[in-house]
């Protein structure tokens, strides 16, 4: 597929804020090539540049440098064509609380120019799709967080867009609501929709995305299929917790089994060069040195490790 027909292409995309000493390079040269029918995960902590990138791709912010094409159109020169072809659900389920779900769908149908005779049927169809048929005539102010996200998703689907942007679609949701949203995203993707999804949840990226990019300080530090990226990290990580006084000595010992890796507070992390069979050796050597092991945890390579290896720190609240 040639570059111009890819649903999302970015080349050297930049966005700086402020000037002089206060200049912040929120996005500093992002390259993306997202294939048709793909779910692409954009993974990074708060402030990494995920949302700024999405805002540029959805024409809400002009780039400082570089270029991007979405659905075949330039995001600056052909912003209106881009807008007609994309669906957007931004952070925090931005919905007017004074209106009902059905009214918002109607408004959205008019904004996107759906033929009038299809407004009601399309609204009903989408409400059913996201499980809000019963709540359609209630004001959004009375919806739960999960319901708002689902309505937000329905709103972004009104014109059956071929490219869908979801900015942190499940942040702050309970596990049940998160699952049901994941299911809906998979279903949309099966129907052929290209999805760019940003998330700070490793599990979400792992579950949904065929390819991911890890972004940190405005720069993409890793890009690829989750399985490949995990394979690149290679060895499993062993986390050892010892008494405070023995940390220094224990560090010297575990280092002989592999390189140190970022770890949660209070623990020592080491990538085991010889694989998980080295665990008993580590424990024995520590024991021989008179160090008591308080806790021991072995983790096969996960996206968390990929992330830690790429950025030098772990995502807070990492759950995968």
């Amino acid at each position, binding site marked *: 597929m040639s570059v111009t027909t890819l649903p999302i292409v970015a080349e050297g995309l930049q966005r700086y*804020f402020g000037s002089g000493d206060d200049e912040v390079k929120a996005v500093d040269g992002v390259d993306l090539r997202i294939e048709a029918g793909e779910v692409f995960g954009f993974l990074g902590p708060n402030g990494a540049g995920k949302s700024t990138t999405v*805002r540029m791709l*959805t*024409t*809400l*912010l*002009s780039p400082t440098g570089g270029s991007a094409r979405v659905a075949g159109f330039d995001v600056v020169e052909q912003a*209106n064509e881009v*807008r*007609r072809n*994309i669906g*957007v659900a*931004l*952070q*925090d*389920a*931005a*919905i*007017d*609380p*004074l*209106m009902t779900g059905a*009214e918002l769908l*109607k*408004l*959205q149908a*008019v*904004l*996107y*120019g*759906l*033929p009038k005779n*299809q407004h009601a049927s399309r609204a009903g169809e989408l409400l059913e799709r996201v499980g809000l048929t019963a709540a359609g005539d209630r*004001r959004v102010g009375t919806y739960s967080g999960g319901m708002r996200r689902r309505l937000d998703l329905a*709103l972004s689907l009104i*014109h*059956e867009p*071929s490219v869908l942007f979801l900015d942190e679609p499940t942040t702050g949701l309970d596990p049940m609501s998160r699952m049901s949203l994941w299911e809906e995203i998979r279903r949309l993707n099966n129907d052929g929709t290209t999805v760019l999804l940003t998330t700070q949840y490793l599990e979400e990226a792992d579950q949904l995305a065929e390819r991911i990019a890890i972004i940190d300080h405005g720069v993409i530090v890793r890009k690829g299929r989750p399985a490949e990226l995990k394979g690149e990290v290679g060895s499993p990580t062993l986390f050892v917790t010892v008494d405070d006084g023995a940390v220094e000595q224990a560090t010297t010992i575990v280092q002989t089994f592999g390189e140190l890796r970022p770890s949660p507070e209070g623990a020592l992390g080491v990538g085991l060069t010889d694989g998980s069979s080295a665990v008993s050796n580590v424990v024995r050597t520590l024991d021989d040195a008179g160090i008591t092991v308080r806790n021991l945890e072995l983790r096969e390579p996960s996206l968390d490790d990929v992330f830690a290896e790429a950025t030098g720190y772990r995502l807070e609240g990492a759950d995968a």
Partner: protein
Amino acid sequence: MTVALHPSTFAQTAEMSKRSILALWRQPALVVPSLIFPLFFAALGTSSFSRATSLPGFPAVDSYLDFALAGAVVQGVLFGSTVGATALATDIENGFFDRLLSSPTTRSGIIIGRMAGGMVYGGLQTLFFILILLPFGLSIEGGVGGMLAMAVGGTILALAIGALMCAMAIKTGSSEAVQGAFPLVFIALFFSSAFFPRETMSGIYARLADINPISHLVEGFRDLTIEGLSMSAVLRTILIPLALAAITVTLSLRTLERRLGAR
């Protein structure tokens, strides 16, 4: 894509206007103060300033109420027109504004759509003040034509002030900032002939009132009330807010462009 999509600017603006009118309807607490305060001022003025009408320079009126109507109407519309801008700031705060901007909608449609509620309200407010004060001795020399001209003027004035507040909303993205800036509009009202005729003023106060477009606007309303229907009064009642609106709507669109580029 199964259907051909034809977004129409008119339909988009109309639908967003419906939304802003609905929003006012669903939040009566936001609009009630702007109906009551100006009436309160007019009532207070009428009882305390009744003898002021005999001051030299004061126009010949049956009662201060005839004189006070124009000020009350303009004051009420100024009050009411911030409601739309505050709603816009709230849209920005909760992110709904971004949803609108990411859709194939014209920028002016988004601004005017958000102002429409305030405009309809501005027109209705004008008629409401006139109708409620008629039994208390108000007489409109301009008749039905004059009342309609005033309603149109009130409608456009609501757009003019609303769009100014909108520029503020877009610039700051904060509903508190919009409400905080409102007293500035009110100062402009006090440095005008809204509550006393220019002929009774002197010094810097008189000069400020002379160059204040609100003075000329209020006097258009006042001439329709006291003197009768005249081309000059109708033009001042309608053209001054129209000129102000042209400036403030342009200002808010510019601010919006800058926001997309700079934020």
